[in-house]
């Protein structure tokens, strides 16, 4: 279990105790009510893979999964997370350290350059494909619509669109194979 106390070191602001699961590990913490989830993850749990691009919920760089859904960690207070399950980019790779299908697709398709928006995109696309396996059959325009919650200033999105499609196909093929095995 990871334990963390965040108390503003200089004033008497109350802190609140929270208990949550981050990347499969239970975390207990005592935090200031104004502490952002992004800061809690980055500076208190050391999970610096989650990046902060705008701090007002527009760019999507800070996207994490809260209870299985993509959410902006810069618009979420840590105290809201009591009892929640949080997943960050650090948890995407497989148990053997291999890249997830989404991560691998981003590499194959040159879906990243500077890498700053990348964790947010990976979390958004992973959530998208968890929710909707049919993305593999979607048109380019539909894929663009589905990933239009995240900003990238480097790639022009072309590699990200291709990566999203490749990852969707990989996941669908894996699922079909698994289903086939089960049925067979």
């Amino acid at each position, binding site marked *: 279990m990871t334990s963390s106390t965040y108390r503003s070191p*200089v004033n008497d602001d109350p802190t609140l105790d929270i208990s949550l699961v981050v990347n499969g590990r239970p975390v207990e913490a005592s935090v200031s009510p104004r502490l952002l989830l992004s800061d809690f993850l980055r500076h208190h749990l050391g999970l610096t893979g989650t990046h902060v691009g705008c701090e007002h919920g527009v760019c999507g760089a800070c996207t994490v999964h809260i209870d299985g859904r993509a959410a902006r960690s810069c618009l979420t207070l840590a105290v809201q997370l009591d009892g929640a399950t949080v997943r960050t980019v650090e948890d995407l790779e497989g148990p053997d350290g291999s*890249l997830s299908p989404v991560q691998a697709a981003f590499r194959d398709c040159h879906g990243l350059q500077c890498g700053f928006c990348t964790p947010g995109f990976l979390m958004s696309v992973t959530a998208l494909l968890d929710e909707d396996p049919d993305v593999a059959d979607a048109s380019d325009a539909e894929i663009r619509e589905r990933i239009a919650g995240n900003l990238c200033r480097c790639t022009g999105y072309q590699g990200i669109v291709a990566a999203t499609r490749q990852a969707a196909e990989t996941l669908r093929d894996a699922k079909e194979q698994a289903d086939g095995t089960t049925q067979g």
Partner: protein
Amino acid sequence: MARPKAEQPEQSAPPMVHTGARVRRNEDPRLLRGRGRYVDDIPLEGCVHGAFLRSTVARGRIVALDTTEAEQLPGVLAVYTCENIGGLDREMPLLIPHPCISHGRTQRPLARDDVYYVGQAIAFVVAVDRYVAEDAVSRISVDIEPLPVEVDMERAVDDGAPLVHPDVPGNIAAALVQNCGDADAAFARAEHRTKIRVQVDRSTGAPMECLATAARWDPVSGELVVWDGTQAPIGLRGALASLFELDEDKVRVIAPDVGGGFGPKIHFPYANEVLVPLAAMELGRPVKYIEDRSENFVHMSHERTQIHEIELAATKDGEVIGLRDVFLHDTGAFIPYGIAVAQVASTAIAGPYRIPNIEVEFRCVYTPTVPVTPYRGCGRPQANFALERAMDQLAEELGLDRFEIRRRNLIADDEFPYKREGLIFADGLPVTYDSGQYGAALALLEEELDLPAFRAEQEQARAEGRWLGLGLSFYVEGTGLGPYEGGRVRIHPITGKVYVNTGLTTQGQGHATSMAQLVADQLGVAVDDVIVVEGDTGVFDWGVATFASRAMVVSGSAIHKAAVKARERVLEIAANMLEVDQADIVLENGAATVRGTGTSVPLAAIATVSNPLRYAFNDAAQIATQFAPANKGDGPPLPEESRPGIQTEEYYSPPHATWAYGVHAAIVEVDPVSYDLQVKRYVIVHDCGKMINPMIVEGQIAGGVASGMGGAFYEKLEYEANGNLRNASFMEFLMPYATEVPHMEMHHLETPTPLNPIGAKGAGEAGTIPVAAVIASGIQDALAPEGIGPLWHVPLNPSVLHDAVREARSR
């Protein structure tokens, strides 16, 4: 002694296995796992945090500044104003002087007496955390008496306009006229003249990572270590050493992973880049400042505002024989980076066309706004927009097809090198286009577009009342400016891995892969066994910076030269070890193998043997210590004029810039109800010489086009008349998402440059340059049936188009 080279049969150049291939990037696995290391990710024990008080008034006089309440807030360690920063209270350097800068002004880290733009730093607070630091900023009391302002650049140069700097008449920072050939004579004999006025508005690079600085002072070693999201760590080190009066070796600047640069991070020093180190030295604790997005809009440099009056002199057949361009360039409240943007615009003004007679004149104008330094394209998008809109206009007036008029004026293949004597580029040398196949590029574009099919489709669309058009723009880009860069190649004795260093930084351009490809081919190793380390003055500190699409051209060439030398050294030692001629040795799979046999020695062994060391810490080292077999002759183990190990260092200095080019076209449709823009096809023909990694080149182009789309239709910084920046957030500053950037069809020509050993030209900014002209000319074509007026001002937007149609219909 090593055998003299002359005894060795010639080794032919190695096969290019990796160079030119679409190699996946070495840097990706780390970045994809969330293990990047950006400034705010560097763990610094006991780190404290900075925040700025910034001016909310454009031009004004500070009549009162009281920091008492902020200082008293528990958790605050220091509050800095201009009064307590010692020698730093001075105007920062004007980095690139030029004789035409008659009134150069730069800003102080913290305002003294006056403020000059909204966002200018007034005070800097350091506190135990960012939250407390921002609390403290809000407790600083400042009273600023506003002074009159004029944010409109054209009115700012009028007599009687409010002055940004009281001692700068007309708000003119610099003025320059350049001549190539005889423009007056050309205009005198012209059969047709076309003159238009174009405007490009202000924008910002908006990298995903804002500015960021962290610093640690080590009182024991006397070393200042600064982590900074910069494109120019070596330059920043020089500035900090100068300002703090430290030896350069006592200042180490590290640009770790940097979340996008796009130009503004080439400028230094920003206020944070000097105040964070100051606080770290004074407080004896690591200090960090991470700019937030709203600050980034009013602090990091902007670019783009220019107004051109461009005139073409032509024959009736559409041959352009002369060009005159007079433009105003908005430099913001200061001109810290000199005239770079205006100069690049002025020298790119004739584009890919022969146009032998040119007169170009500009004035750099102070306005009470964020200072202007280069942003991706650096004046070229403005010059391209002016020239290409003028070419379209000329074609229309002469009744010529837009492709045809370009075809008639493009510089022919056999005219290279093509010099524009009198136009001095940013490298201080006359514009000289080195190589190209402009005609072939245009022909390839026409073929890919299938123009007859488009014309039919357009006719059909018009019959249905749909607005469908084709836009076109041809650009050139001077890339790879000097003066020089270096490269060091070193083969690690234990692992056989190859370490490469250069003085650049990367903000996503993939240097760790493309530079590694060059080296991997020379040494016969896998690309991922070549580790490129850059952006750290503690590792390599000779060089300039990453800007002007120059990394591959200049550093790539230097690294290639160093790799060639390392290969020679490997072959020399391997020939001695294997007792064969060098010509019989093949370097592949990380080993030197005798051609046609299974006999080989691994690179690690060669590297170990190359170092006649004393200690036998492993088996390979034992061999080296016992036998020193790298050398066959008598004499000392380390012969005169040699060095231990396989380590080479070379430098490359380009004779002048190398000119990449390309031509883009788009088929666009404007919605007749919403006036929304849809780009149905976007076709690119691009030539950056020899491509080291086409995947990375295409990524650069695609990113460039995306920022070009922003400048064409979305991104505009809206200054209010009082100098307040109205849309300083991602909520209000429109940037292209995946839904606003078209799919790009890319086609390459590869005309090598004769100027460097790898034949490469730069690619970083290319994509951005032509997009505004492409989109404007496409929309103009789409709306032609409505008879709208000319679209000579970008960014466009639905309201502008709606007004243009309404205006046309009311005529």
